């Protein structure tokens, strides 16, 4: 198999594109990221690595993991952050270019298709490697106001989701979401997203970054205090559930 992972344009005998699969490995090593779609709110959450002592935390925050592509579209990703910068820049240009040529903001599906198309292009050219990241793209349709969540991956495929996770331990998060997903709105959606993240990330506002998108207010990053408050709520609920489980048997 070693012979078939050099140039990306070559299929292996059993139909694999090894470079693409290796790119997916890179994604699996990246920070955990989760997205949950509610009826009127969409929440993106990412695992945040603690900043080194000498590092200027403001500059790290500036190269945020959850970014705006346009007023009504946001993106979170897992994988190679440098590749993300390139992809995000192209997507932002496309958002404005679309507004300029057709005088309409992009739909979430359009920009997802664009990003996925870009990722696919790099799996079918000579001498280039695929982008090593999967993205979670959220937004509200500019006219119908319907919220959407899409995911793309290094192969260039994309699909819509009610809730999804990518990056480190995404399988555990996805399992949790499959078990616990229900239609939520507002703060409940935020809680669900944070609960999913807490399955794989150390608890606390220091280690997760959460952004909430609403139709009227666009993307809003939650600050540490807000995240801590929700985390505390979640832990209290968990403790209460544990106590309830242990409670009744003792009485009998």
């Amino acid at each position: 198999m070693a012979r078939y992972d050099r140039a990306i344009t070559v299929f292996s005998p059993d139909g694999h594109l090894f470079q693409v699969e290796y790119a997916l490995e890179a994604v699996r090593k990246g920070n955990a990221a989760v997205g949950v779609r509610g009826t009127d709110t969409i929440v993106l959450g990412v695992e945040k690595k603690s900043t080194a002592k000498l590092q200027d935390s403001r500059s790290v925050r500036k190269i945020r993991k959850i970014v705006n592509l346009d007023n009504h579209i946001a993106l979170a990703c897992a994988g190679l952050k440098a590749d993300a910068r390139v992809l995000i820049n192209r997507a932002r240009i496309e958002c404005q270019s679309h507004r300029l040529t057709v005088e309409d903001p992009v739909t979430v599906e359009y920009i997802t298709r664009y990003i996925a198309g870009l990722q696919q292009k790099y799996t079918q050219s000579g001498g280039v490697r695929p982008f090593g990241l999967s993205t979670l793209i959220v937004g509200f349709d500019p006219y119908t106001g319907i919220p959407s969540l899409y995911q793309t991956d290094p192969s260039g495929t994309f699909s819509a989701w009610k809730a999804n996770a990518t990056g480190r331990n995404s399988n555990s998060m996805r399992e949790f979401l499959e078990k616990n997903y229900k239609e939520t709105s507002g703060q409940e959606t935020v809680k669900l997203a944070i609960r999913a993240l807490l399955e794989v990330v150390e608890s606390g506002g220091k280690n997760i970054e959460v952004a909430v998108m609403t139709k009227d207010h666009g993307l809003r990053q939650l600050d540490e205090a807000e995240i801590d408050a929700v985390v505390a709520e979640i832990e209290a609920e968990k403790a209460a559930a544990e106590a309830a489980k242990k409670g009744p048997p003792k009485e009998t």
Partner: protein
Amino acid sequence: MECVFGLVGKGFALVVADASAVHSILLHKSNEDKIMILDSHKLMGASGEAGDRAQFTEYIQKNVALYQFRNGIPLTTAAAANFTRGELATALRKSPYFVNIILAGYDKETGPSLYYIDYIASMHKVDKAAFGYGSYFSLAMMDRHYHSNMTLEEAIDLVDKCIIEIRSRLVVAPPNFIIKIVDQDGAREYGWRKSINDDHISAA
């Protein structure tokens, strides 16, 4: 026949433009908005070739928005003006844009400012500026009555004086004018000065 002018007051800047869309001797409409809102705190009044006007101002507006998404903070008025001038200059020796621009903006640190940018890419930061045949009259009025730190009332009064001069002295004076203001609360439409009301026609 197009008239665009602007001035800086105390904590605000005004841009006034005529509202006529003209093709040779035909007046298409008299409620054309020639002052583009670039972003929350910038106005760009433009006069000149109609197609270039729309194309160029929209192009600048989208690039100003892109800068904000890329960098997380909006462009300053000076930066936007210099970018606009740069685009005009680059196109000048290839296929020039025939658009004259008055750019007004409000920055938190430096307050209101006004830039005069003409179609061959010369740029000046000024307190009052005007383009078109109307400039002969509006500049004269502003030279006579303008002083720095005018209140909004005084400034609107001066604007109305300029419009009266244009209406009474310019042979093919535009019937309607639009006034937009930018201050710390943002860029927005201030009002119209209409002598022909054809809104009901455009609606049909």
